[in-house]
């Protein structure tokens, strides 16, 4: 890189990381202030681990993110398999359009639209409050699905079609051929889809805000409620912990990616070597 490019890169990185650096630093502040640093202390971390409401929100967020990402990965993978084989062009086009809607629409519109429907259906059945964990789970599955499909579908299209066909010609049932041959081939796509769905669900605020109810609080909603009042460095302590957890997950998934790529490559090479021997 040229010197001027290096300076430019450095400036952008300062812009991107300044708020994060400040946040990490002030989580260790000795006083309540978020702009004057007065000595290192772990006080706010202790406070955080005493905050039942926040810990409850962490638990809720994990339950929601795990269920939403697992369900959307299974449903989305199945959908990608089916969409790939759709023969009628207009049906395929319609599926593509519908799948794109939650990704293109602003979150606020997705949130409002689901909320209106839940409230309407709830009123229809005479329920006073219709928003709860269930409605939020539905909302999360809905906005995760397109991202899973988007990850899995290209992998199916890149796959060697003769593989599952060969398996079936050799007497495999379609279901067995799918699980034994197709799934291993598209597995990296499934995992990327799962990780994406998980992180999207973990981080979502806007759609959750409109579809939650009955006191079901996720972490982003808890953070929103915290920032309505005066914020203490406790929130930064929380942010710091989230930051490092995500950093570790990111590194792990990179390692995993590299590993799967490596295993697949090795397996391919072995296969090639074998076919040459024969």
């Amino acid at each position, binding site marked *: 890189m040229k010197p001027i490019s290096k300076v430019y890169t450095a400036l952008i990185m300062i812009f991107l990381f300044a708020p994060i650096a400040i946040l990490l630093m002030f989580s260790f502040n000795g006083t309540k202030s978020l702009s004057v640093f007065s000595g290192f202390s772990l006080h706010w971390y202790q406070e955080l681990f005493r905050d039942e409401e926040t810990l409850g929100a962490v638990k809720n967020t994990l339950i929601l993110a795990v269920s939403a990402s697992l369900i959307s990965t299974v449903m989305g993978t199945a959908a990608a398999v089916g969409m790939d084989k759709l023969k009628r062009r207009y049906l395929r086009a319609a599926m593509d359009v519908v799948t794109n809607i939650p990704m293109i629409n602003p979150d606020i519109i997705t949130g*409002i*639209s*689901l909320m*209106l429907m839940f409230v309407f259906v709830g009123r229809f059945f005479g329920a006073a409050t219709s928003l709860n964990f269930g409605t939020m789970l539905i909302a999360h599955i809905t906005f995760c699905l397109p991202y899973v499909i988007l990850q899995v579908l290209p992998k199916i299209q890149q796959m060697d079609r003769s593989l599952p066909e060969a398996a079936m010609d050799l007497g495999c049932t379609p279901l067995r051929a799918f699980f034994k041959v197709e799934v291993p081939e598209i597995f990296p796509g499934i995992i990327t889809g799962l990780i994406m769905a998980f992180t999207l669900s973990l981080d979502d605020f806007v759609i959750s805000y409109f579809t939650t109810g009955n006191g079901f609080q996720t972490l982003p909603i808890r953070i929103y409620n915290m920032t309505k009042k005066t914020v203490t460095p406790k929130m930064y302590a929380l942010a710091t912990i989230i930051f490092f957890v995500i950093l570790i997950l990111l590194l792990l998934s990179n390692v995993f990616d590299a590993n799967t790529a490596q295993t697949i490559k090795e397996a391919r090479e072995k296969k090639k070597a074998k076919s040459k021997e024969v």
Partner: protein
Amino acid sequence: MKNNKPNRGLALMQRLALAPYSVWSVLFIVVPLLFIAYYAFTDSAFHFTTDNITRFFTATSEVADGDGVKLVRTYLVIFWRSLRLAVISTLICLVLGYPFAYLISRAKPKTQGILITLIMIPMWMNFLIRTYAWMTILQDTGILNGLLGLVHLGRVHIIGTESAVVIGMVYDYFPYMILPIYSVMTKMDVRLIEAAHDLGCSGAGVLRRVIWPLSLPGVISGITMVLIPSISTFYISQKLGNGKFYLIGDAIESQYVANNLHFAAAIAFILMVILLISMAFMQRAANKRASV
């Protein structure tokens, strides 16, 4: 050898695989959108009305204007402001992000990987906290003014101005501009650029005639990915604009909080229609450029 016999079990399985998602997407993607239209065009007793839509275009409020008060169309002003701030933020992201995406795409593969990961890391941080951190930086007694005071540069008043809202938008959505442009640029055929140079094209000429047109699909998707969340945001303006700069997202949210679901739906409906129309135009423009 290909199996020519129609495999009934296979066909059935494939159809079954798609069934849950088909039902799901109709129930939870298509039908909810219809509900927006339904609520937008009904009153609280669910009788048909266009009042909600008319209210958006005609509601007025008084605004202090120099020495008196001025009557303005409340929601049109809000909409115009959202559009203006979102366009400014998108342009800043494009101007800052385009050269950076180009830089990354020309770096060594390992450096590319590191830089892209670095750009993505802030995205993983909850956006409410990121925005709040900016608030503590930009406050009158905040970190920026503290630093400026240390070097005797005086103070700046940013918080509660439109600039603060724009900074927040640029910060929150900047990666969405870089990633699509970068991914198009890495797929670009370097030989085309070399050929243009060899044939005597100047640096600026190569940029304008080769690199820019080839990267246009990435630019278009970057613009959409920044413009849409910034036009519909409702948190950034509350925190960094001190609630003084109501945006269209704030209007929807406050109607929701006040339980005026029908009017909230009407604003959402209008926003959605405008976005759909503008996206169709942008897509057409992109296709035209591509075919020339």
